């Protein structure tokens, strides 16, 4: 009898061992805490945060964080159960989902951030070019207070944009770049408005007519004539209708406008005559050829402007406009006169008689400082 019981016991033990051996992998899967999955999920969420997913992929990060919390809660819930009742399957599934969501958040954040950086960089480049173009244009065409304000804000916004780009905020950098671009365009538009008369076809036709008539008169009389081109900063001497010499010249500081009153620092435009010649002893500016500004046409225009209220009642037309020396500086610095270098003045002075006609035009439509600046801006598509 004894051996039967012995056999039965051994069989039962063997059966138990076999059952455990067969069931262990399944049971182990259920009751072993998911240590590795937990670490991987936590690392993945940390990586997503470090990649800036909080800013660049917030919804994805929130989902991953929420699932991480749920999975940790589920894991802990199982941990406190009796060992054979534990089942970490749900925790594992949630951790796996967390990891894939966090990885997706990392990828999306990197992509979005990269895109934002590229866009900010591109906006910054465009804004830099626009500001540089506006700066160039402002050197050629002096801006008024409004234009200066736009340009100053453009510069400032550009510096702020660079600061934010360097400090990891490409979105703000892009916003400020766009502001800089807009302000630079406004400055250029303002400059274009101020210098519009230099590309105005009707105005150019009038100036051309003046030049043609002046040259024709020189040809007819065989005498000298002077044409001053403000846009080109050139004084051209004609003898018997032929251009014999051109001189670089500086103009009035108010370089864009025609003279309308005393003290406006503008060089007058019109058809004048030399009424006085001053040698070194009688001119502060080496030598001088005084024009008959204001002539009858200037006075008519002046009175009309005063009557219409464009000029104040106490305004005066001004005078003492000369072609004189001490110039050739490459900047417009006079109070309205035309300034040549002393050497050029020495060359011009003896060839001119009292009564020699002097025609001062804004331009002739064939280029110059102001018209070229406008043309450049048009080509760069910055004029609205």
């Amino acid at each position, binding site marked *: 009898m004894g051996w039967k019981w012995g056999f039965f016991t051994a069989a039962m033990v063997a059966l138990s061992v076999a059952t455990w051996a067969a069931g262990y992998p399944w049971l182990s899967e259920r009751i072993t805490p998911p240590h590795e999955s937990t670490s991987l999920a936590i690392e993945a969420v940390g990586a997503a945060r470090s990649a800036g997913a909080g800013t660049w992929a917030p919804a994805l990060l929130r989902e991953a964080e929420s699932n991480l919390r749920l999975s*940790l809660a589920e894991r802990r819930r199982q941990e406190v159960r009796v060992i054979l009742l534990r089942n970490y399957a749900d925790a594992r599934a949630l951790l796996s989902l967390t990891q894939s969501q966090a990885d997706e958040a990392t990828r999306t954040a990197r992509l979005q951030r990269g895109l934002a950086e590229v866009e900010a960089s591109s906006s910054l480049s465009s804004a830099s070019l626009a500001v540089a173009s506006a700066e160039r244009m402002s050197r050629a065409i002096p801006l008024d207070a409004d234009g200066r304000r736009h340009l100053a804000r453009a510069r400032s916004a550009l510096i702020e944009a660079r600061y934010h780009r360097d400090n990891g905020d490409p979105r703000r950098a892009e916003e400020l770049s766009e502001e800089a671009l807009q302000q630079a365009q406004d400055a250029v538009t303002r400059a274009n408005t101020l210098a519009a008369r230099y590309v105005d076809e009707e105005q150019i036709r009038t100036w051309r007519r003046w030049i043609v008539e002046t040259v024709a008169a020189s040809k007819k009389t065989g005498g000298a004539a002077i044409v001053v081109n403000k846009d080109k900063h050139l004084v051209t001497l004609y003898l018997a209708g032929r251009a014999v010499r051109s001189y670089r010249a500086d103009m009035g500081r108010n370089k864009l406008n025609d003279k309308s009153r005393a003290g406006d620092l503008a060089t007058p435009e019109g058809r004048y005559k030399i009424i006085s010649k001053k040698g070194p002893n009688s001119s502060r500016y080496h030598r001088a050829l005084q024009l008959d500004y204001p002539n009858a046409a200037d006075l008519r225009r002046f009175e009309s402007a005063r009557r219409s209220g464009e000029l104040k009642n106490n305004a005066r037309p001004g005078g003492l406009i000369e072609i004189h020396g001490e110039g050739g500086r490459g900047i417009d610095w006079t109070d309205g006169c035309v300034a040549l270098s002393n050497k050029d003045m020495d060359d011009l002075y003896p060839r001119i008689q009292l009564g020699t006609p002097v025609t001062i035009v804004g331009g002739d439509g064939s280029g110059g400082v102001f018209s070229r600046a406008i043309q450049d801006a048009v080509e760069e598509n910055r004029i609205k």
Partner: protein
Amino acid sequence: MKTKQMIIPLALALVTACAKPPQAEVDAARAALDSARTAEAAEYAPESLAAAEDALAALDAEIQAQQGRFFLIRSYGEAQTKAAAAREAAEKAAGDAATAREQVRVESEGLLAQASAQLTEASSLLAVAPTGKGTAADIAALKADLQAATSTIKEAEQAYSAGQYKEAQAKATAAIATIGTVKQAIESARQMRERRS
């Protein structure tokens, strides 16, 4: 017999007392996390804030786990430890944020002071800048630039007052650059004048 009668209710009372979640500690941890968020930890100490949020999540998980157990075997000892850890992490996040914020504040304050000092200096230089025929300094234009810098400094001060220190830094930096350009232009004009005289 009398002693036995007393021990049983006492043991039950102890078990029941120990089975309550550590609500005060949990509330303290939550309050500390709210303080960290108010201290702009999300902007100035994001990693510390994330660690504090994770610690609070672990605390929540522990409490949920214990609540899921049979009431007589619940144990909130671990929850208490986690609550303390969560509170500590939240306090650290608040501290880190305050430190980082203070650093940016001090930097922006320094830049603002520098911008104001440079503005005063440039205004004084502009007041005695060479004028009249022959100067390269376009006084009106430079004044406009200084006015623009003044506006930018005001904007920076407003941002500073509103606690937007990074914005204040950016604006102060821009103002300093603008003023530097004006000072350079005045200096060029002065040198030109000296060369001519």
